[in-house]
């Protein structure tokens, strides 16, 4: 299974390189380092979100509320900044992580304590969070003029040749890599996905671990809330609407098994990067952006079909809750 997963990431990496080479054949400027870094920067937010979603999917759950969480946290950050420009941006970022984490914890508690299937919980909180964005903003937008220069400028500042946004993504990726491979929590996430019943008997608290996965996904969504708003300099109810499934798509392309237990940090990053490269390549080779959706849809289907062999045995396990033993 390990070699299969490894193969998958190599193939995905090759596919990304192939797309880049094909586009470069017609437009040499596409593969210039500056442009590649731009693509990386453009994809940073999706990469982080995919990592958060991966933690949840590994445990046989799914979080459909991430984009709504992002919109809500982003709106709070933007309104705070508009009202009190003096609050330092790092503090706002920390606050976003906390708020996002709390929203994730709400999902997590419902899954953990009430044993409601994650897809139902997050379907509900998806609409609740979106509605709350409207309630707190009154339907109004927060635009660039209302945001402080620091709020907008921080992630654009270039450090060692890379924008801060890219650096944040790199740091988050490293943290996730350490979490997944070097900590008991990371091992528990995988263990639950592979076999929830056995995990209970090895002393893993299945419910608590799922709760932690949701908190993690929420915290990442919150962080990305600030980053998204300050990147596109508009906060509205519509922010990232429908994006929840793009995040899942990036995970699926990255070889993270929707049946739980299988997936790597590199896979999630490459899956997001694949979508990012395609989206950046389309306008360059003069394909109208209207093709974007159809092409990413095809990419998702191809990725799933290629991945089918590994997942065949458990097609619909994502809809099942882990069998929690009676303690």
């Amino acid at each position, binding site marked *: 299974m390990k070699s299969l997963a490894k193969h998958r990431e190599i193939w995905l990496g090759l596919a990304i390189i192939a797309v880049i080479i094909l586009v470069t054949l017609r437009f040499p400027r596409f593969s210039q380092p500056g442009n590649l870094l731009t693509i990386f920067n453009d994809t940073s937010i999706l990469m982080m979100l995919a990592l958060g979603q991966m933690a949840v999917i590994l445990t046989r759950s799914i979080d459909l509320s991430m984009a709504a969480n992002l919109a809500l946290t982003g709106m709070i950050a933007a309104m705070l900044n508009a009202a009190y420009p003096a609050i330092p941006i790092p503090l706002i970022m920390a606050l976003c992580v906390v708020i996002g984490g709390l929203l994730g914890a709400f999902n997590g508690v419902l899954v953990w304590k009430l044993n409601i299937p994650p897809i139902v919980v997050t379907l509900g909180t998806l*609409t609740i969070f979106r509605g709350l964005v409207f309630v707190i903003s009154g339907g109004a937008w927060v635009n660039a003029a209302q945001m402080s220069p620091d709020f907008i400028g921080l992630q654009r500042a270039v450090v060692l040749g890379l924008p801060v946004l890219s650096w944040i993504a790199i740091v988050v990726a490293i943290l996730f890599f350490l979490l997944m491979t070097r900590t008991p929590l990371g091992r528990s996430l995988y263990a639950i996905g592979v076999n929830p019943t056995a995990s209970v008997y090895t002393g893993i608290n299945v419910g608590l671990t799922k709760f932690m996965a949701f908190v993690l996904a929420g915290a990442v969504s919150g962080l990305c809330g600030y980053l998204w708003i300050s990147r596109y300099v508009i906060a509205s109810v519509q922010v990232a609407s429908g994006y929840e499934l793009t995040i899942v798509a990036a995970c699926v392309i990255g070889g993270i098994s929707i*049946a739980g237990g299988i997936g790597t940090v590199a896979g999630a990053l490459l899956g997001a990067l694949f979508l990012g490269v395609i989206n950046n390549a389309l306008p360059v080779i003069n394909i109208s952006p209207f093709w974007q959706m159809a092409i990413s849809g095809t990419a998702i289907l191809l990725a799933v079909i290629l991945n089918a062999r590994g997942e065949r045995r458990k097609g619909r396990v994502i809809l099942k809750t882990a*069998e929690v033993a009676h303690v």
Partner: protein
Amino acid sequence: MSDVKAGRQLPNRLDNPLKSTLLSWESLLVLVAVAIFIFNSYSSPYFLNEWSLSDLTFNFTEKALIALAMALLIISGEIDLSVAAIIALASTMMGLALQYGADTSVLVAVGVGVGLLCGAFNGFLVTGLKLPSIVVTIGTMSLFRGISYIILGDKSFGNYPASFGWFGQGYVWWVISFELVLFLVFAVIYFVLLHRTNFGRRVFAIGNNDVAAQFSGVRVDRIKFILFCLTGLMSGIAAVLLTARLGSTRPSIAQGFELEAITMVVLGGVSILGGAGSIVGVVLAALIMGLVTFGLGLLNVPGIVMSIFIGGLLITVIALPILFRMWRQRA
């Protein structure tokens, strides 16, 4: 802690028929519906009026038509997230057919046909290639809507003939709309199909344990394929109704319908884990969602805020029986 599936076990109706009926999921939904109805009639003077109540039905009929088929699909343990995209594609194709001078009957055939084909495509990917339906339909969701965007771009198709518009705006008898009648007819059909036929029993069997069903001689893949086709078909029908009601086609049509249809199904007491549920519950849930959105609309609550109530309702209604059982076990 008891798991969710055990909680949805039907009470033994032979023991105490009256008590089990009163404690069923459907009675809870009736209670919720009546409460909202009473709240609505007190909160707005414009609610208790035959035309208001008729308008109310437009809030849910199109989504509820899909929810009927989706209920069977979810009971069988699968899911279809592409239904809204199917509406978009079917609607786009109808618009395209209109540009070539198609008349009303052809338009309807195109809409329903495209829906059926899309459903068959989903069904083939899931049963033929043995892929997980949640991922397949996330993919086809982008694919179907993407094709609509490719065809339409930033344009829209309009100028549908008046006879076509009747499907979404016409009244069969006084205030009873064609959409409502169609929904009621299909509700009866799906009720009979799920609760009174061998096919329906097999759907439940597959949802409870598809391996056991396979070994008992149920053609699991064929039935799942049919269920995907049915969901596609209902989406095609919904596309006809919605397009006729709006009188135009845009690629962004029916955005978010998939989640609302699934919310109806889950609110209706269908277990998202498969194997349990009833059509009566889904019809009641559709009515409740219609009542909530329409009642809040009369109070000038914006659509996006209604989503808080729908989401809250979904979680509360699901959580209540679980909390009640936990409380009873502790006492």
